[in-house]
């Protein structure tokens, strides 16, 4: 299962989840679009913009699905949607409510066995971007979706890897969408399900030496801002604050002292067109965005 599933089950396990923004819809101050928008809408728009120029995207359901479809309608018209269930080139006629939705199959380019999907597409290195969610993430982008507490006697049993550890290793770039809090942005994760930049500075070297396809985590979009990763240290760096968010809020919502870009930007608010697409075409019932 992909992003949103891990996500939401993590939510059900007591962790923060992006979809849990009920009540926040259209409550945040508007940006350049002049309109109000929810935190989820900001996260979707920010993630979609990062997909500019990408070709093949391993999709999860929920926010990543909407972000990917928004990108396809804006910055990445040639984006091909891959679902781990064994679909390439999906053209869903409705917003899939889960990855177990037959609409991802009808009208797709190719359906293949899961062996072929994972071996010939993902492990072969044909996937440009994969989305991951996290119950816990550390400063190097390593992710835990397995357990809170000890593996043998967990305080909270999370869903586990699914395809996440494979996406983390093989997707050329990894996008993370998640809400941040001291419980989710932690100094030390309880279990490493999906490798990010591993120990930090030598993460890139370990990936190259091991012949991994993936370059590691590329961007983390939270409800407060956008992080990229410093090439030298492998550490997450806050590059942009969402409209209305403050550095203090960010510091209060993470377990380590964050690196902050010299020129900290403000994320452009969702444009009128982005909001129109999200609200009218992609999630008209507001299932994921309210």
């Amino acid at each position, binding site marked *: 299962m992909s992003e949103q599933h891990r996500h939401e089950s993590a939510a059900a396990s007591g962790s923060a989840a992006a979809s849990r923004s009920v009540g926040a819809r259209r409550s945040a101050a508007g940006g350049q679009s002049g309109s109000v928008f929810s935190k989820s809408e900001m996260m979707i728009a920010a993630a979609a913009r990062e997909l500019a120029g990408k070709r093949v995207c391993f999709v999860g359901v929920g926010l990543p699905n909407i972000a990917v479809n928004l990108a396809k309608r804006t910055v990445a018209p040639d984006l091909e949607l891959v679902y781990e269930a064994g679909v390439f080139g999906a053209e869903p006629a409705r917003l899939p409510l889960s990855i177990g939705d*037959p609409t991802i199959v009808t009208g797709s380019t190719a359906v293949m066995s899961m062996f072929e999907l994972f071996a010939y597409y993902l492990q072969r290195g044909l996937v440009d971007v994969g989305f991951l969610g996290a119950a816990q993430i550390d400063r190097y982008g390593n992710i835990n979706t397995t357990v809170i507490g000890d593996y043998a006697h967990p305080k909270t049993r999370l869903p586990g*890897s699914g395809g996440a550890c494979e996406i983390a290793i093989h997707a050329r770039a990894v996008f993370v969408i998640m809400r941040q809090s001291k419980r989710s942005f932690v100094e030390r994760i309880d279990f490493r399900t999906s490798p990010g930049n591993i120990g930090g500075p030598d993460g890139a070297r370990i990936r190259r030496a091991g012949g991994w396809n993936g370059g590691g985590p590329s961007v983390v979009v939270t409800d407060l801002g956008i992080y990229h990763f410093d090439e030298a240290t492998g550490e997450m760096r806050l590059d942009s604050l969402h409209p209305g968010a403050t550095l203090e809020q960010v510091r209060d919502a993470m377990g380590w002292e964050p690196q902050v870009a010299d020129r900290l930007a403000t994320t452009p608010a969702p444009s009128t067109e982005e909001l129109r697409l999200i609200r009218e075409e992609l999630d008209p019932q507001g299932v994921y965005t309210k």
Partner: protein
Amino acid sequence: MTSKVATMADAVRELVRDGDTVAIEGFTHLIGFAAGHEIIRQRKRDLTLARLTPDLIYDQMIGAGVARKLIFSWLGNPGVGGLHAIRRRIEVAQPAPLEIEEYSHFGMVCRYVAGASNLPFFPLRSYYETDLPAANPLIRPIRSPYGDETVYAVPPLRPDVTIVHAQRADAAGDTQVWGLLGCQKEAAFAAQRVIVVVEELVDEAVIRADPNRTIIPGLKVDAVVVEPFGAHPSYAQGYYDRDNRFYLEWEAISRDPAALEAWLDEWVYGVSGRAEYLAKLGEERVAALRPGAAPSQPVDYGAYR
């Protein structure tokens, strides 16, 4: 040709034995709920259940007490929440502990491929720099005999019984699927015994008119059970949609042991089989799940005489 058509009750009684390793496969598509319910109804015990995504069906089965062990790669109710009956057994051993053996999706798939191929292991490039090999010592590093690259290996998974739901089969068990294929073929070839549950029983001529759609030959099949809507609340491509309402409702049922017990009493123990379950569900709800038509075009195999 001998017919392998059997009732679900007979197929499960004869082919699923206490203590067996059972794989009900079908990734989001064609999940064998009818078969799982029959296993509950027959009060099978001490099963080892294997499946990439245990999903609602294994939450129900494990909640009902049929299993002592779970082999899996992702434990959740996709898009909704958790599988609380399973989690209770893992987190607080209620009502009993549950042994687990955990992989990633590709790791599970490769285990079935190894089983289907009679290989002692299968290599894959997963697990690097993760805690999974420490959590599961059956995930082992292996060096390539060409240069110094190291990959990981997983062992073969060889279920005693694999159960798959499919769109159609003939009486000999020749089975066809379209839409998502998951790893049903591999899980079936890996198994000692195979039960196929289908939406429709078709004439052998239908199978032979399109042999590229066959995923399992009758040779590997022990019983064919005809059980329309047997994958509900999951879906069968072209036959019915996923019943999302039930997935949403399961969250509350699964959280409460008493509610789970009541649900099992009403929908599993309280019905004789899938026909009664469907009648209980009601015609209206069932009818609402039927999709519009989206037919493929025929292809020509050519008559070569």
